[in-house]
């Protein structure tokens, strides 16, 4: 066990908690709790970014940490909660795979992601390079969340969680992306959320449900 500074230990703890929150999201049946977990993930990500900014002394990381905290930890969850209230979707239907099975698949995915990230981590020069594996795992777990859900709302939560994973990956591999890209991505997400919010109402008006397998029936109508 090599001696590491307390701030790096704290960063590692944040990384581990991020992974844990992804698993919690994967196992969650209630949409409201999923959104709350997304907010927690946003807070963890924002705190990790601010801590990394303090550790490396890079000014632009402070900005992206602040953007993360306001956008991903506060605004988007608030928007999603409002949508849930107005659409009245509190529960997802039973996921495609049972929970215990999903978790085991998730574990295999984590092992795969850790293996996948090893050569990338070997090339990176940052002190946080060991967390790249966790970032890849968060992205893939968010993918799994999207695959195993039927309701549009839970898929959107999975999508946002995937963006969190990508952001964390960029942070641990290269201490964050250039400012202009980060601003662009943040704006993209914001607009995507607003557009998807409108979409939800359209989908529900068309099919009386947010269950996405209704969309498949369009193919047969030709």
């Amino acid at each position, binding site marked *: 066990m090599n001696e590491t500074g307390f701030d790096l230990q704290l960063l*590692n703890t944040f*990384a581990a908690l991020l992974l844990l929150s992804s698993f919690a999201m994967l196992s969650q049946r209630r949409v409201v709790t999923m959104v709350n977990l997304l907010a927690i993930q946003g807070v963890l990500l924002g705190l990790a970014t601010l801590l990394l900014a303090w550790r490396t002394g890079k000014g632009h990381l402070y900005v992206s940490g602040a953007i993360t905290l306001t956008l991903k930890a506060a605004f988007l969850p608030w928007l999603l909660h409002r949508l849930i209230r107005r659409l009245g979707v509190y529960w997802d239907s039973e996921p495609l795979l049972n929970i215990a099975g999903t978790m085991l698949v998730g574990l295999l995915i984590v092992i795969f992601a850790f293996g996948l990230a090893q050569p990338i981590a070997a090339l990176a020069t940052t002190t946080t390079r060991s967390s790249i594996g966790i970032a890849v795992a968060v992205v893939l777990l968010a993918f799994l969340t999207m695959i195993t859900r039927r309701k549009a709302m839970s898929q959107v939560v999975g999508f946002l969680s995937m963006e969190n994973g990508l952001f964390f990956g960029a942070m641990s591999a290269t201490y964050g992306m250039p400012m202009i890209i980060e601003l662009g991505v943040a704006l993209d997400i914001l607009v995507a959320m607003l557009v998807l919010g409108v979409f939800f109402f359209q989908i529900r008006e068309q099919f009386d449900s947010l269950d996405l397998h209704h969309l498949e029936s369009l193919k047969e109508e030709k």
Partner: protein
Amino acid sequence: MLNWLTQILEVLAALLAAPLFIGWVNQCRAWLQNKSAPSALLPYRNLRKLFHKEAVLANNASPFFRLAPYVVFGAMVCAAAIIPTLGTRLPFSNAADAIALVGLFATARVFMSLAAFDVGTAFGTLGARREMLVGFLAEPALLMVIFLASLISTSTALPTISEGLATRALGLYPSLAFTGVAFALVLLAENARIPVDNPATHLELTMIHEAMLLEYSARHLALMEWSAALKLFNYACIGFALFLPWGVATGDAPRPLALLAAIPILAFKLFAAGGLLALVETVSAKLRIFRAPEFLATAFLFAVLGLLVHLLLGA
């Protein structure tokens, strides 16, 4: 010489303190639920009463049924001898490592379940099947917890693990935190505590552990209850050895003073752990039996995540 003294003292402490520990947990639980609490000494009185009664056996009980309480009790005493509760230099611990310890618990479980099948009543069979369901899911999680501790301290002997963890630099270890949660979940499931089984109910369709003991009486029942108390005590002490390893007499020749100091420290840890256990049992509701696999899958997940995080981050 002192090592042997430690060994004997440890087993005696486990035997004597285990009923008190159960009594303390029950007392805390009653307090937290606004009931008038029974004395913490109640389990002792119960054991004395049961030992003085005449044993009654079912007509079709085989000798195996009578043998089982002694085997279960013996396995629990052996387990208590391996776990470093007071000192880490235990002569007996050379005989078995942490994986053998899991095996000892499994032996006790198998004998108990087979004895419950033996009489052939509906409740016994039901309880035994459920016990095996919970057991086979909890065991891999417990093994994963032990594997992580072994990885960190490069040994599977519990006293060495405990000593290695106690002398490590203080810091934030997410892997240990995850496995700590996993261990707590396994402890609740294995000892028939509330989210999985309710230790306070009899004759309900939800019971697991009590259903297996329905056919026992007198000294057999006393031994079974004593070994249940010992099992909880042992699990708590494994938890201390892995996650709170401080205060135990370490070093090649434990000084008498360190040994003396270890006793009140252990008592304090048990005191706190009992209160915490009662709190967890009070705030959580009992799970449906079909949700128990999910509960234990969570424990397994936590344990494996701890292991993976340790391998990736080295923390």
